[in-house]
């Protein structure tokens, strides 16, 4: 069987894809909260929509914060999750 970098990789699941997307955009994702949100309807497509709709808010928020990068990342993730909650609520899903 091939080993190391040649070994076949498992395809990432949707929560992992959302997490990677958020990390690429400077957020520190909490996997437990993401799993919970996914269970209640959050998809990668929805995460991208919410992010795009609020991009300016996150950029402004990020500029405003005078915190270490990890705390800023966690704070951005919190803001993102609350936006997801609003989005899901408007679409008739139960609150996260």
């Amino acid at each position, binding site marked *: 069987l091939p080993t190391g970098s040649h070994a076949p990789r498992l395809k990432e699941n949707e929560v992992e894809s959302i997490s990677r997307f958020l990390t690429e955009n400077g957020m*520190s994702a909490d996997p437990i*909260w993401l799993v919970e949100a996914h269970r209640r309807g959050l998809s990668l497509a929805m995460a991208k929509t919410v992010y795009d709709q609020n991009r300016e808010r996150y950029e402004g*928020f990020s500029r*405003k*914060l*005078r*915190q270490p990068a*990890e*705390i800023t*990342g*966690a*704070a951005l993730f*919190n*803001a993102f*999750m*609350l936006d997801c*909650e609003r989005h899901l*609520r408007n679409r008739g899903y139960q*609150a996260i």
Partner: protein
Amino acid sequence: MNRKESYINDKRRVSYLSSVYYRISHRKSVLIEGGYGAGKTRFLQLIQPKKLKAVWVESLFNVHEMLSAILRDLDYEARASYRKSPGYLKLICALSHFFLLIDEANDLDRRVWPYLKRIIDAGVPIVLAGLPKVRTFLASEHPDILSRLKTLTLYPIEVEDFILQYKDFEPEAIEQIYASVKGDMRKFEEILTDCREKAKELNHAFVGVNLVLSLLSESEQIQP
């Protein structure tokens, strides 16, 4: 308690309160379920109908103490006693100008439930509040009681309501606190108090998001 002072303008809670008033005015009972810190106790404190006296029942009491305590609250002389409990139950079932409020219903002794059923059936409304496990317990052990109750599930208040309520906090600051407590409103209020105290120490008239994040990271409430 002044309703305006203590009540956050949350549409779901307003609707629940109307539903509770409707039920108890029709001599029917209600179960309010919610997780830790969802605001069950505060919600119960808001139930103050004009025509019915509220009698708070301690859920840790055994059945004899409970029956006598209800009667004492209604100005009867009653001493908890095994022998007198049947008479007390009969008297409670015959009265009609009050309703019972039972918080922490998850603490109720399982032997109390059949007595509560008799009281419900006599037309004395009971408003119970407890963790979701109360409903699970009733569904398996006393489906007949559960069928007599309307269940209202209390979710934590939405962040927008808090933003409107706490004008001395930056909206983003409230969001960060709200997100970090994950629905525990007791913890939410504790953090609000800590932040206000810190802002006072620093002579800030307004609680900003950076101050909140610093406090949350100190208390490990926010973690990367």
